[in-house]
C-alpha cells in the first residue's frame, strides 16, 4: 500500500534580506485510500507544502524527510516525483502556448506510464474522462491553459488526475474560484478517483465548502508553517463556525 510520509519538513524561500522559513516542521502521513484535508488561513504555508512536495525550484528544503513508499522524494527531480506517483493539481495552472491539450496529455501519460498508451484506447479514455467532467471535446485542440476560464483550468487539472492515476494526489486550492456547478463537477471527478481506493489525497483548502462534496478522513489545521491540530471530519465543522482566529492569535502567524 502506497504511503507518503512527511517528517519534520522545513522549507525556506529566498526573500529580501536572506532566506525566510515558511514550513517549520511538518509531520504528516498519507496512506493510499485516505483523504486528508489541510486547512489554514492565508499565508500559513499550506501551498508551500504542496509545491515543496512537487519539487518547485523556488522552495529550498532545509530539513526533514519526505518518503514515498520508503523512497526519498527529496532526492528526486520534479519529473521523477511525478513518475513515482505524486501529482499536484495547481491553484494557478500555467499556460503553455503552442502545445495542445491532447498532445500534452498524451506526452504526460507516456511519461508517467513508461510507454505510449495505445492510440485507440487512449482516445476513448480521454473522451470518456472529458465527458465525465462535462468538457467540450473541442477543448483537446486548444493550447494548454491558454485563455481557459478559472473553471476550465480546474477541470483540466482534474482531467489529468483521472488520466495519470497517481498514488498520492495533492490538490492545491482546487475549489478556489469555482462557482457551485463547477465545484460539484470537479468534486465528482475527485471522488471518482478516490473511489478506486488507490489514491491518497491531500486536499489543501482555505474554505470548508468543498468538504461538503468530498468527505475527508482527517482534517489538519495548518498555521504558521506547521500542523497545529488534527482531527476527523468534525474538525472542519468547528472551523466552519469559528474560523481560524483561535489559531492565528497569539503571534502564531506572521
Amino acid at each position, binding site marked *: 500500500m502506497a504511503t507518503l510520509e512527511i517528517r519534520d519538513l522545513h522549507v525556506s524561500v529566498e526573500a529580501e534580506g536572506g532566506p525566510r522559513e515558511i514550513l517549520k516542521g511538518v509531520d504528516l502521513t498519507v496512506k493510499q485510500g485516505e483523504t486528508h484535508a489541510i486547512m489554514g488561513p492565508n499565508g500559513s504555508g499550506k501551498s508551500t507544502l504542496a509545491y515543496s512536495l*512537487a*519539487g*518547485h*525550484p523556488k522552495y529550498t528544503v532545509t530539513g526533514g524527510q519526505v518518503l514515498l513508499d520508503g523512497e526519498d522524494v527529496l532526492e528526486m*527531480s*520534479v*519529473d521523477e*516525483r*511525478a*513518475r513515482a506517483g505524486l*501529482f*499536484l493539481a*495547481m491553484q494557478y*495552472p*500555467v*499556460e*503553455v*502556448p*503552442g*502545445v495542445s491539450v491532447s498532445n*500534452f496529455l498524451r*506526452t*504526460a501519460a507516456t*511519461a*508517467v506510464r513508461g510507454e505510449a498508451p495505445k492510440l485507440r484506447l487512449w482516445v476513448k479514455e480521454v473522451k470518456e474522462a472529458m465527458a465525465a467532467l462535462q468538457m467540450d471535446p473541442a477543448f483537446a485542440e486548444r*493550447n494548454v491553459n491558454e485563455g481557459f476560464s478559472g473553471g476550465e483550468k480546474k477541470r483540466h487539472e482534474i482531467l*489529468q488526475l483521472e488520466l*495519470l492515476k497517481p498514488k498520492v494526489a495533492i490538490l492545491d486550492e482546487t475549489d478556489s474560484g469555482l462557482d457551485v456547478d463547477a465545484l460539484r463537477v470537479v468534486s465528482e471527478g475527485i471522488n471518482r478517483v478516490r473511489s478506486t481506493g488507490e489514491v491518497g489525497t491531500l486536499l489543501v483548502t482555505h474554505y470548508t465548502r468543498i468538504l461538503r462534496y468530498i468527505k475527508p478522513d482527517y482534517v489538519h489545521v495548518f498555521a504558521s508553517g506547521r500542523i497545529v491540530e488534527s482531527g476527523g471530519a468534525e474538525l472542519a465543522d468547528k472551523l466552519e463556525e469559528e474560523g481560524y482566529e483561535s489559531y492565528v492569535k497569539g503571534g502564531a502567524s506572521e
Partner: protein
Amino acid sequence: MAEQNTPGSTTAGSIEVGTAGAGEQLAGPGTGRDTVRQPIDARVAVKPSFDVNDFPVPTGREEDWRFTPLHRLGGLHDGNAAEGAVRDGAGSDKIELGLPEGVTSELVGREDARVGKAGTPVDRVAAQAFSAFEQALVVTVPKETVLTEPVRIDVHGEGGVRFAHLVIEVKPFAEAVVVLNHTGTGTRAANVDLLVGDGAKLTFVSVQDWERDAVHVAQQNALVGRDATFKSVVVTFGGDVVRLHPRVNYAAPGGEAELFGLYFADAGQHLEHRLVIDHDTPHCRSNVAYKGALQGQDAHAVWIGDVLIRAAALGTDTYELNRNLVLTDGARVDSVPNLEIETGEIVGAGHASATGRFDDEQLFYLQSRGVPADEARRLVVRGFFAELVQQIGVAEIQDRLLEKIEAELEETVA
C-alpha cells in the same frame, strides 16, 4: 507567452507621432533638429540606388550596419567578392524549378522593366548584387490562374560568390504559393522582386537551410497591388551570416501584407532580419510576427522592424511583433521595432518586442506531469514556434516547417 515583456527581457524601440496637416516641422538651431523630417530610410545614410558606386563601403558604424559582422561577409560589402568573381570566375549554384501548369519562367537582362520594379537596393550589398548579376530569373503566374500546388525554386549553392536576381510576378487575380529553398553553401547576394497584381494573392516562403559556412545577404521587395494579399514567410536556420531585408510597398489602396518569420541561431551564427513596411497608400494593412530561438556561445539574432505610416496613408492598420527565446548563456539578441507615424487618421498601429529565457513555470508544470526536463524544453520551444506556424495557413508548408523545427530540436535542445 503573454503579451508583455517577460522578466529579464530586453527591448528597444521608438515611436514617433506627427499630426496630419500639421505642416512641416521646424528645423535648425534651437529646435533640437538638424533636418526637417527624418523618414526611416533617411536614417540610413545613403539614398536607395541600383548602382553600387552610389554607396560608400560600410565601416560598421552606420546605423544599418552596426549589428552586422562585416569581416564575415566574404567581401560582399567592399567589392572584394565582386572583384574576386571577375578575376577567378563566379561560383556556381544549381537551380531546380518546379512549375505547376501555366506558370512560366524566363531569363532576362537588367533592362527588363520587371527587374527592380518592386524596390531599389537600400544598401551596398544589394546594389552590388544588382550591379553584378548576369541574368534575372523571372517566374510568372498568369492572370486569374489559381494554383493548387506551390511553385518551387530550389537553389543549391555549390560554393564561391553568386549574385542573383529573381522576379516573381503574380498577375491580377491569380493565386500562388512560391517556395524559395536555399541549401548548400557559398557567398550570395541577391535581390528579389515580388510583384503582386491587383486582387492577387501571393504566399512567398523563403527558407534559409544553408550549410553552416554560407553567407547570404538579400533584399526581398514586395509591391502589393490594389486589394492584393501578400504573405511572406521567412525561415532561417542555416548559414554563418544571413542578413535579409523583407520590404513591402503598396502600389494602390486595399493591400494587405503579412510577414512571418522563424529563426533558430546556434553557436556562432549571425541571423539578421531587417523589415521595412512603407505605408504611403491609404487603407492598407500589415501584420508582422517574427519569432526566434537562440542557443550557444555567440549565437546572434538581429531583428529590425521599421514601419512607416506616411501622411497620405489614411486608414492604415499595422502591428508588428518580435519574440526571442534564449535557451542558453552566451547568446545575444538585438530587437528594435520602429514605428513612425505621420498621420493620426489610422485604424491602428502597434508593436511589441520581448526577449526572454525559458519560462521556468512552464517547465515546472510539464515536469510535474512526469515529462523529463529535456523533453519539456523541446515541448516549450516547439510550442513557441508552433503558435506562429499555425498562422501561416498553408498546411503543407506548416507540416514541413514543424518537421524542420523538430529536426533542429532533436539535434540541439537537450
